[in-house]
């Protein structure tokens, strides 16, 4: 019987320092057969393993059509992520995945998209945006809204400049606080919604970031009559096994690792907004 908990060996192909506590690494499974069979969808995640340290769940940010590499952007917050940040090109680690249900890229076809991300380097949204822009004909208008705490936290300027150049794509940037040189907005992400010209019957909302921000967006979008089934978010809970066994990621009746991490509001409504749920 196949051991669902056991990683495969992967190699660091490239690494990039984004900010002092955020880095990106490019990985490849060392067994060429396994790498060539590896397929993922935007919004899915991998478990990354360091010997003696443990495993952590991280979203996959690369292009789902590129079958040669797997990209991750990771924030150093604790023991495993800090040590992942020390890896150099050529170093080995463990990887298993992909896991979970990603973004509803098929269900959302034919609708306008409002993609809201909060916090720096919100990884789950990057592969979504890249995917959507590559298959743009399938979607209507695309609004990309990014909120950060402080203007200094904003990364990936080049990426946003590139996205801005697509027809039918609008990029909205805001910071809770900014310095004098911040050319964009100050305030919450919801401030833009009046200007988006939302047609609730043909709009899909997808978001990731702090739960507080997501709650504000959900509330606002529901007031605008966007259907609950078309408001989507990526959730984060403690994940040990990633295959629905360890019980740690439960959110009501859902297992974030296999039923999510992407859910629509309708699925989580009974649990949404209750402290400690």
């Amino acid at each position, binding site marked *: 019987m196949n051991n*669902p908990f056991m990683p495969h060996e992967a190699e660091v192909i490239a690494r990039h320092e984004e900010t002092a506590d955020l880095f990106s690494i490019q990985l490849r499974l*060392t067994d060429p057969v396994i790498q060539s069979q590896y397929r993922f969808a935007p919004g899915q995640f991998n478990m990354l393993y360091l010997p003696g340290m443990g495993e952590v769940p991280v979203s996959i940010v690369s292009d789902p059509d590129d079958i040669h590499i797997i990209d991750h952007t990771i924030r150093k917050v604790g023991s495993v992520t800090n040590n992942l940040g020390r890896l150099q090109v050529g170093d080995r680690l463990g990887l298993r995945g992909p896991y979970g249900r990603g973004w509803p890229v098929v269900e959302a076809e034919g609708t306008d998209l409002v993609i809201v991300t909060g916090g720096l380097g919100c990884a789950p949204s990057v592969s979504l945006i890249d995917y959507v822009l590559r298959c743009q004909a399938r979607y209507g208008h695309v609004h990309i809204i990014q909120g950060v705490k402080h203007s200094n936290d904003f990364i990936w300027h080049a990426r946003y400049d590139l996205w801005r150049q697509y027809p039918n794509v609008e990029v909205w940037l805001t910071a809770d606080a900014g310095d004098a040189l911040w050319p964009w907005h100050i305030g919450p992400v919801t401030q833009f919604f009046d200007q988006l010209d939302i047609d609730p019957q043909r709009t899909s909302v997808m978001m990731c970031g702090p739960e507080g921000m997501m709650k504000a967006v959900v509330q606002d979008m529901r007031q605008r009559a966007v259907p609950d089934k078309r408001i989507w978010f990526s959730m984060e809970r403690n994940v040990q096994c990633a*295959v629905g066994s360890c019980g740690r990621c439960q959110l009501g*009746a859902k297992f974030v690792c296999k039923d999510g991490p992407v859910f629509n509001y309708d699925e989580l409504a009974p649990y949404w907004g209750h402290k400690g749920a």
Partner: protein
Amino acid sequence: MNRQRFLPRERFQSLIDQLKAAGYDVVGPQVRDHAIVFDALTKVEQLPIGITDEQAPGRYRLEKSESRRCFDWATGAQAIKPMTFVARETLWQSERLPGGGISFHDTLTETRPVAIIGVRACDLAALSIHDHHFMRGAHPDPQYSQRRQSLFLIAVHCMRSAATCFCTATGDGPQARSGYDLVLSELDTGFILEAHTGRGLDIVLQMETEAVTAEQTEQADAGILRAARQQHRTLPAGPLQEKLVSAVEHPHWQTLNDRCLSCGNCTAVCPTCFCQTHVDEISLDGQQASHVRQWESCFNPDHSHIHGIVIRSERSHRYRQWLTHKFGTWEEQFGRSGCVGCGRCITWCPVGIDVTGELAVLCKRNEP
């Protein structure tokens, strides 16, 4: 042949012997440190003969009973859960190779076939839930599956309930209905044996048994009925998911913040709890690591930790998670309640919190 045969008490040892002869390691209940536990069994005399248990919220005592029966007690602290979902086990190992690479190894070793004597109806119901959880998903668990497949189960119908038992309310007992190879009905003079699988029948056929009399059957039925009638705890009318989820802000949870110690005893004794922590343990030379899984409790704040935050930071959140999951959201996940009515969480709670009492309060407001 009639599937039921009678085994006189003097010949009970022949069941153990026959199982051994068929290649099984035999495990059965026995008294250790004032409690009944399952352990290796070679002689009938090791069984808790003439012992009964007195259970109440926060209380468990073994006492002498008037009979010579071996199964005249209700439940020990642990069911058979530790034999399939092991409290601590290695899932795989990694090794650093000289060139900088890492190799990964399975740690699965052969398990010997094990026959367990004395499995209760509630324990069988819990096992069936764990079978669903560990074996029927998209990623079957190799460790669990291997242990599970090596089991030969000899159930025993309960003829006596503890005061904490409520399996009649969950519909799981006191009669063992499915999921075993053999089942015993214990009478004063001996045992009615009933085979439910071909291999169970093979064991019975090897033994010197007698025809079952109508009177013996009546005694067995009466015993099961007696056990059922001894139970007085009840549950609110189900399904409970909707009732509990909508009671999420019920003020009663706050009282649990004050009463519950968050010790996790209830989750440790519950035969259906399955939460886990996976940790990596490195060898002294740093070259090898074992990826170990151990039981975890939703009462441990770390259970819901994500960097910088504990989602269920209050004891009331954790109690709510335990009760809402076990009796409510379990229904959506498994198609039934996560409770099999064994009463262990009531007995082993150091402050005597009784899930049936809490549910009565929490579901009352929502009762039609």
